[in-house]
């Protein structure tokens, strides 16, 4: 397709299917482009999942015109949007669909119009657009495309080449616009993701299918020399939330359940293997049930095979909960990770919990499902993470229920907001009271650095404990307990009354109790409470009120 003059709807879909595959190859590298050396919102994964949903929906397009396919892709991106970059990407798709109007095929000029509209839509969707992000990249790439079409050539391929080059320069320049990127020595992850998508699309247009298969996308280097070591892979996404619940029995001779369990543990989650050398029952959650079957088939004969899609199971579960839940005027949907914290939120009256958090950003669709499952027409959403606030704000456009998002960015803010919920008040009053309550609490979070870095005056080594106060990095220490104490010091807790410490999945109660004892000794007038949070990644989350 070296002399692409126009692009049909089918070609548009194929182009972005290829581009999504291209993005997939570098999604882990994009995930690693974190400002803070913590397992973060997984920008690459989020954009990939958003694109997958977009492609999936494109097959449901009303017609195969370019505009028809783009509209379906925009819809798919909207319901599949995860994380801030995913939401902005869905806005970009929304703009592209609008820009294509009712075009049957796309020309170079149409592409320019679509990109310009996409940039505009992306900005309009945000209350506080930040430069040096994916927003800047779409805007500058569109501007380059417009200039190229006017001054050089409006051939489709030529415009696309210029767009990709414009995007690359824009990504390289993000650290000069956003100081946190400069400090961390990284380019903006969302911008990189968008560039990779466009680059994949260009490869397709050029007919470079070998490139797409064999090579990997390049990561754009910062235009500013790196001061820190290049980021390494982040061990995020260690939990696959969904997939297939796979059950079967193997009968044979000389089976080794122990060895089988060890092998299967590498292939999925929630692995249960019980039995003896003649019969073994297996339960595993996996994304690839076929692969599991293939693996166990030679070991013996297979019986009672049962494979269930857990997405559906989850939907059934929501349906079941719906019948069980009491009628409430206003329901609360909370996003929470960790068994303990889930119980805390449930016990304080959250109507439904959507599992998710720092490294598992739920999609708009996940939140929408929860919203639709509750037996109330009015719903308050508590995102409890800065990467989920924007996703939550998209839900209103997809439901007839009345939604209020109380933009809680941390778990303590979520708890404070939930406590302020008044059974008697109406939706608006409650949302207002909860926002007010959220603003009063201070949040301390302690985790471990996943790479060496330098931030401001702080020199951080991999595996050191780092403490955040309301999202700002304020403490570095060898031990999590020390980072906690140091971060608490910054709050001036002598003015506070209550400190609640939620300890994480990898932290022992005895350690948490010791940390609490130290806090009590330091601030004897305070009420210090220790609660099992069970949250991943964070040793401690503490609220100060």
């Amino acid at each position, binding site marked *: 397709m070296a002399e692409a003059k126009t692009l049909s709807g089918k070609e548009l879909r194929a182009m972005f299917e290829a581009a999504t595959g291209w993005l997939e190859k570098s999604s882990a590298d994009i995930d690693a482009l974190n400002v803070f050396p913590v397992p973060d919102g997984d920008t690459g994964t989020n954009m990939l999942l958003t694109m997958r949903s977009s492609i999936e929906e494109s097959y449901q397009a009303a017609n195969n015109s370019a505009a028809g396919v783009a509209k379906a892709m925009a819809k798919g991106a909207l319901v599949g949007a995860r994380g801030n970059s995913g939401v902005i990407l869905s806005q970009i798709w929304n703009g592209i669909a609008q820009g294509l109007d009712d075009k049957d095929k796309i020309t170079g000029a149409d592409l320019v119009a679509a990109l310009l509209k996409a940039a505009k839509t992306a900005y309009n969707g945000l209350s506080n657009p930040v430069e040096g992000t994916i927003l800047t990249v779409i805007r500058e790439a569109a501007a380059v495309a417009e200039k190229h079409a006017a001054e050089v050539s409006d051939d489709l391929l030529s415009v696309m080449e210029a767009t990709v080059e414009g995007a690359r320069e824009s990504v390289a320049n993000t650290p000069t616009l956003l100081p946190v990127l400069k400090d961390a020595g990284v380019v903006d992850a969302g911008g990189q993701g968008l560039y990779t998508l466009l680059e994949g699309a260009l490869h397709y247009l050029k007919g470079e299918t070998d490139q797409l298969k064999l090579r990997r996308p390049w990561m754009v280097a910062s235009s500013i020399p790196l001061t820190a070591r290049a980021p390494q892979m982040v061990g995020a996404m260690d939990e696959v939330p969904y997939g297939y619940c796979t059950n079967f029995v193997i009968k044979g001779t000389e089976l080794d359940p122990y060895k089988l369990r060890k092998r299967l543990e590498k292939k999925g989650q929630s692995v249960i293997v019980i039995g003896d050398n003649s019969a073994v029952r297996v339960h595993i959650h996996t994304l690839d049930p076929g692969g599991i079957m293939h693996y166990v088939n030679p070991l013996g004969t297979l019986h009672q095979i049962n494979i269930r899609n857990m997405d559906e199971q989850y939907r059934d579960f929501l349906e079941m909960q719906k019948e069980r839940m009491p009628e409430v005027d206003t329901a609360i949907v909370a996003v929470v990770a960790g068994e303990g914290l889930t119980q805390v939120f449930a016990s304080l009256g959250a109507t439904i919990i959507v599992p998710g958090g720092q490294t598992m950003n739920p999609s708009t669709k996940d939140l929408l499902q929860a919203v639709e499952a509750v037996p109330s027409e009015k719903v308050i959403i508590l995102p409890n993470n800065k990467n989920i606030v924007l996703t939550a704000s998209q839900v209103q456009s997809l439901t007839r229920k009345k939604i209020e998002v109380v933009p809680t960015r941390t778990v303590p803010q979520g708890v404070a907001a939930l406590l302020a919920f008044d059974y*008697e008040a109406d939706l608006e009053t409650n949302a207002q009271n909860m926002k007010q309550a959220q603003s009063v609490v201070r949040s301390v979070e302690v985790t471990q650095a996943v790479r060496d870095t330098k931030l401001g005056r702080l020199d951080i080594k991999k595996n050191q404990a780092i403490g955040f106060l309301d999202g700002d990095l304020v403490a570095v220490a060898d031990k999590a307990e020390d980072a906690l104490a140091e971060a608490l010091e910054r709050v001036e807790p002598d003015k506070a009354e209550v400190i609640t410490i939620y300890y994480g999945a990898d932290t022992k109660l005895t350690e948490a109790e010791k940390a609490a004892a130290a806090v009590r000794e330091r601030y004897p007038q305070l*009420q210090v409470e220790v609660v099992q949070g069970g949250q991943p990644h964070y040793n401690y989350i503490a609220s100060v009120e």
Partner: protein
Amino acid sequence: MTVRVITDSLGDVPAEVAGEMDITVIPINVIFGRINYRDGVDISSEQFYDKLASSEVLPTTVVPSLGRYADTYDKLAEETGDILVITNSRKLSASYDTALLAKERVQKRCRVEVIDSQTAVLAQGLLVIAAAKAAKEGARLDKILEGVRNNIPRAHSRMAFDTLEYLRQGGRIGKAKTYLGTMLKVNPILGIRDGEVYPFTREHSRARALDSLYDFAAGFTHVDGIGVEDATTPDEAGELARRLEARFPGEPVYRAKVGPAVGVHVGPRVLGVAVLGDRD
């Protein structure tokens, strides 16, 4: 003839106010194991909470017999022909039903009207005090009855709890059971709605809970009665009363104790505020 007003001890009307206003209080029975105490007669609030702290058995409450109510009517009928009985919410105790049935047993010629306050604690108390005041001023029974009916939706109470365990064990928790079993230490603020205990809000510390009581009461624009009651924390009650006196100058703030019968169901360290008034 002056109308006489009767209530049960679940309204926490302070004894000196009852004496001054000629309010007759029927004591609810508080039972520790096999020993029966008449609320406010055999046992004071202070004695009750001391006993509660040391007792191995949890106390219970029992509304006095029909006969006790009827005797009270008969006794008052020697002085008046018109009696008004304002009882605790019928959804919280048997006081209303008993008071109503007791009318049949009255020996003397006398008109007895029984009305369900649809509330409890000092909010019930404020309704009773307002009615007794009208009676003292010479109002007739029908007029007073109408006044009480109008006042019922204007009587509000909020109580700060440290624990809901006593409410739960006493079976009076109502919708506030949604506040049970929280994994965090929180201070629930409860009140009464539609005659039942109702969960209004929660605060994460005692100090905030007390502020919340103040904010609730201070939010009224017009008050015809206001009061503060405590179980075991008179200093906190004093401070709250002082703040409310500053907010409503010239309006007396009644000080009451959570009585033994109420105490059985709410436990120690409860602090409450009650208002008879309007928000606009």
